[in-house]
């Protein structure tokens, strides 16, 4: 709750800072704001408080996921430096919208009422529609903004319809009351067909937001057209908050109906893993590959959801942290490289190992983490998810996922090969000191998570 109030006021304050002619102050200020929010957020660690007629619960689950999304945003700031150099007039607005969208993300991880979930998703989505189209002179960005907006509003409509049907069946928006109403009666959950229909529509709406197949079709185009900085935000914060909210809804409200939603979700998981990984392998553009890779990571996170036991929360937390850090590093390097070389394909990275050893090394670590190579955070993320799934006897699903992550190694290592085994395609990429610092931090964090996973694996 404190973080929500702080983020909102900081967002408004930041708009006023934007009135100044020079925008040099904005990045340090936003950095400071987010550090304060992060500190205040962890102050709530260990206490469970409910606010306003049980609309919002701040517990360890909410604090942990809020920490992930705020940290991700902090790590993103140094890569916005080019906007300062170019004297972009909308810089303050960009960051105010990011701060506001974090409010939505927090609502999605801490909600206790479906209305809060809906408002949270909307805050996050509307901010993303705007940021997707924020590069006004770029046709691709316009396309991304419009596409995301049209399809996203459609998905929102379906989600809302689902919530209303759930209300019609149970008479409650409160997630605990829904569970009580759903399991009451004959002991068989989901006795009411209305509830099943509502659950299905809610599933569709949330799956769209986290880009799980078959509701992923917007992802490649939107991610490719969106300015890289905001693509990074979209593929990390939205996904983390989306899955945290998704898991909370399923585990609190529909735990009794596991047998009913399991077949649907398991089919979706297999399709998501397949489309994400095989689609990514077919791409020539690095950014598009990352879009498909984000679909495939949604698939892995869905396995944790399907495992549905006491390990799932920790697995989702650890995986989304490892995924977010590695993705921000990859997109950050892509932004630095593509700003200079004006290319988002694999060729942009040719010979980076020779011209910029630091960027190449961090990129390699990030790719290893995304591919799930040992000694990186991504390996343990996958390990925790698979071991949670093993407890639920989902061995065949794990085998599918491992096969798919082998495909993943192919496309993640294409960029490593380009960096180390090709002739340089351009000059040395200029990297600011804050960006290198952030990249080193992310590389260290990824390796620490891969060497000492116990530090974070049992938090929840």
């Amino acid at each position, binding site marked *: 709750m404190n973080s929500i109030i702080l983020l909102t006021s900081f967002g408004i304050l930041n708009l006023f800072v934007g009135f100044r002619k020079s925008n040099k102050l904005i990045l340090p200020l936003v950095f400071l704001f987010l550090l304060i929010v992060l500190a205040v957020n962890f102050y709530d660690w260990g206490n469970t408080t409910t606010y306003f007629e049980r609309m*919002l619960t701040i517990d360890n689950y909410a604090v942990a996921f809020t920490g992930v999304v705020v940290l991700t945003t902090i790590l993103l700031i140094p890569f916005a430096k080019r906007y300062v150099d170019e004297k972009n007039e*909308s810089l303050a607005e960009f960051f105010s919208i990011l701060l506001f969208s974090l409010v939505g993300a927090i609502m999605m991880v801490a909600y206790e009422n479906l209305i809060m979930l809906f408002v949270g998703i909307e805050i996050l989505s509307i901010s993303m529609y*705007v940021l997707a189209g924020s590069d006004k002179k770029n046709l691709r960005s316009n396309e991304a903004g419009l596409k995301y907006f049209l399809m996203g509003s459609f998905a929102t409509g379906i989600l809302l319809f689902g919530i209303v049907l759930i209300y019609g069946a149970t008479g409650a928006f409160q997630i605990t009351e829904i569970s009580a109403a759903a399991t009451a009666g004959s002991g068989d959950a989901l006795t009411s*067909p209305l509830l099943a229909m509502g659950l299905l529509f809610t599933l569709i709406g949330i799956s769209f937001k986290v880009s799980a197949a078959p509701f992923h079709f917007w992802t490649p185009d939107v991610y490719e057209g969106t300015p890289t900085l905001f693509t990074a935000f979209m593929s990390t914060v939205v996904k983390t908050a989306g899955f945290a909210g998704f898991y909370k809804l399923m585990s609190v409200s529909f735990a009794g109906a596991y047998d009913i939603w399991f077949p649907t979700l398991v089919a979706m998981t297999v399709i998501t893993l397949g489309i994400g990984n095989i689609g990514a392998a077919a791409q020539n553009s690095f950014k598009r590959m990352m879009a498909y890779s984000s679909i495939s990571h949604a698939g892995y996170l869905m396995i944790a959801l399907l495992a549905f036991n006491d390990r799932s929360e920790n697995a989702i937390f650890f995986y989304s942290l490892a995924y977010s850090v590695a993705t921000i590093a990859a997109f950050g390097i892509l932004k630095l490289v593509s700003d200079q070389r004006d290319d988002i394909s694999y060729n942009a990275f040719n010979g980076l190992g020779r011209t910029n050893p630091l960027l190449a090394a961090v990129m390699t670590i990030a790719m290893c983490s995304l591919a799930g190579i040992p000694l990186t955070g991504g390996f343990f993320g996958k390990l925790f998810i698979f071991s949670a799934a093993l407890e639920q006897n989902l061995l065949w699903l794990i085998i599918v996922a491992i096969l798919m992550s082998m495909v993943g190694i192919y496309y993640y290592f294409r960029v490593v090969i380009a960096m180390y085994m090709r002739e340089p395609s351009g000059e040395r990429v200029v990297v600011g000191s804050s960006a290198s610092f952030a990249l080193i931090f992310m590389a260290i964090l990824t390796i620490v998570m891969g060497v000492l996973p116990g530090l974070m694996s049992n938090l929840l």
Partner: protein
Amino acid sequence: MTGNLFYFLTFLTLFAALGVVFSKNPVYSVLCLILTFFTLSGHYILLNAQFVAAVNIIVYAGAIMVLFLFVIMFLNLNQETEETQHKSTLMKVAGVISGGLLLVIMIAVLKDAELGAVDTANFNSQIGLVENLGQLLFTKYLLPFELVSVLFLSAMVGAVMLGKKETQQRHF
């Protein structure tokens, strides 16, 4: 009386909604949509929810529909621009099948759906009035109500940002 009114309004709603889908001219579609919104507001009044009815007319029939009409006329879409011939037959068949499946499922669900019986003795007929709604909004649902302002703020900032003239932009 109200029963007949209900059926009349429902007939009109469905008729207008079908008109939205089937009319070839986008302007007629929009006009049908306005009729749909008005008849829906009629339904709200039958349910004794005057506030929702008024808001529905002001927001949807007033603001959003004017925007629709404006955009359609602005983009000169009112002549028939049939895009359908670009779609392959396979796409059309797939669309019809999946839409039909959804319809079948919905019909099956609604056939079996049992809504809780209304307790007519203790039913508060004033529940949809603006006073009750306001009380609920400012007590039980205060937090979402206030947080929606963040949503609007973020949408407003975004709209201004996207609509703002850039210094080096050409002025048409």
